[in-house]
């Protein structure tokens, strides 16, 4: 039986694993769509400052809890840039995030989560580590993702960027623990961002973001 939940900390951190950064540019909005076999999500983010952002969205995730049901949650999230290093030809960041929302799925009555991301990138190399923990009555979910991206050429503002991104995703929940490699083709300009990926089981996924 599905039941409504209140005071559910947002589970949108799944999305954070999919895209590069949880905060857009200061004063801007970002529309984001995630779609894969296990996860579908749509969210809107507003960043009053480059240091923090707020997001609202809806997420559906299959078999997340270990029960044969689909998690469905609507959430509000806050993300903070804890530290940034601007180097002559590189940038590094530390982000943390969390949120509140409501959710529906079988057999649970609350949840909480914590997440963090560390990344370093140049115009040719991208690396990131993302770690998230979600817990609640009836479920526990954690994943850690390491990503390495390589660009065959250096993009600029007027030229589309093209990257190959390799990810190793470690997942543990009530049902099992797994380690899966993924590969994605990342393309972006100043206005849009698209990751088109496929995991080791051959399941495709996309992550689309629009700046406006």
């Amino acid at each position: 039986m599905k039941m409504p939940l209140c005071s559910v900390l947002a589970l949108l951190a799944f999305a954070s694993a999919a895209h590069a950064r949880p905060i857009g540019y200061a004063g801007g909005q970002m529309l984001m769509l995630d779609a894969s076999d296990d996860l579908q999500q749509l969210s809107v983010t507003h960043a009053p400052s480059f240091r923090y952002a707020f997001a609202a969205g809806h997420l559906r995730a299959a078999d997340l809890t270990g029960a044969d049901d689909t998690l469905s949650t609507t959430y509000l999230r806050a993300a903070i840039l804890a530290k940034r290093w601007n180097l002559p030809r590189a940038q590094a960041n530390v982000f943390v995030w969390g949120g509140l929302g409501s959710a529906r799925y079988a057999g649970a009555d609350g949840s909480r989560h914590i997440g963090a991301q560390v990344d370093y990138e140049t115009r040719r190399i991208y690396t990131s580590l993302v770690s998230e923990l979600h817990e609640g009555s009836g479920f526990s979910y954690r994943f850690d993702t390491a990503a390495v991206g390589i660009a065959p050429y250096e993009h600029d503002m007027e030229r589309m960027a093209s990257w190959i991104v390799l990810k190793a995703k470690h997942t543990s929940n009530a049902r099992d623990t797994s380690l899966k490699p993924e590969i994605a083709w990342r393309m972006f300009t100043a206005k849009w961002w698209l990751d088109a990926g496929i995991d080791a089981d051959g399941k495709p996924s996309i992550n689309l973001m629009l700046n406006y």
Partner: protein
Amino acid sequence: MKSLRLMLIFTLALASAATHAKTIRLEVNGLVCAFCANGITEAFNRRGDVSDVFVSLEHRLVAITVKDGKDIADAELTKTLTDAGYTVVGIARVDTTLDAIRAEVANE
């Protein structure tokens, strides 16, 4: 007569400055991603005193044209870039136009 000539030159110089837009070049650290650096263009466009913005990741360059030949103080320029999430390491006012800078970058 000499003072009249000097006054005329000074007046012409002022008139010239008023009709030519001022171009400012900023050297910036952290420019690695077009999707993120778009915020710089938006930040300067939100100002009422900037008519054009050019960003080059390759040259670590942000160049702007200031309206009506006016100037923007270094502290304000630095704040605009800092609030966009980047670090300014150099500021220069140049005689060339923004289109000339675009052409120079494109031809390299």
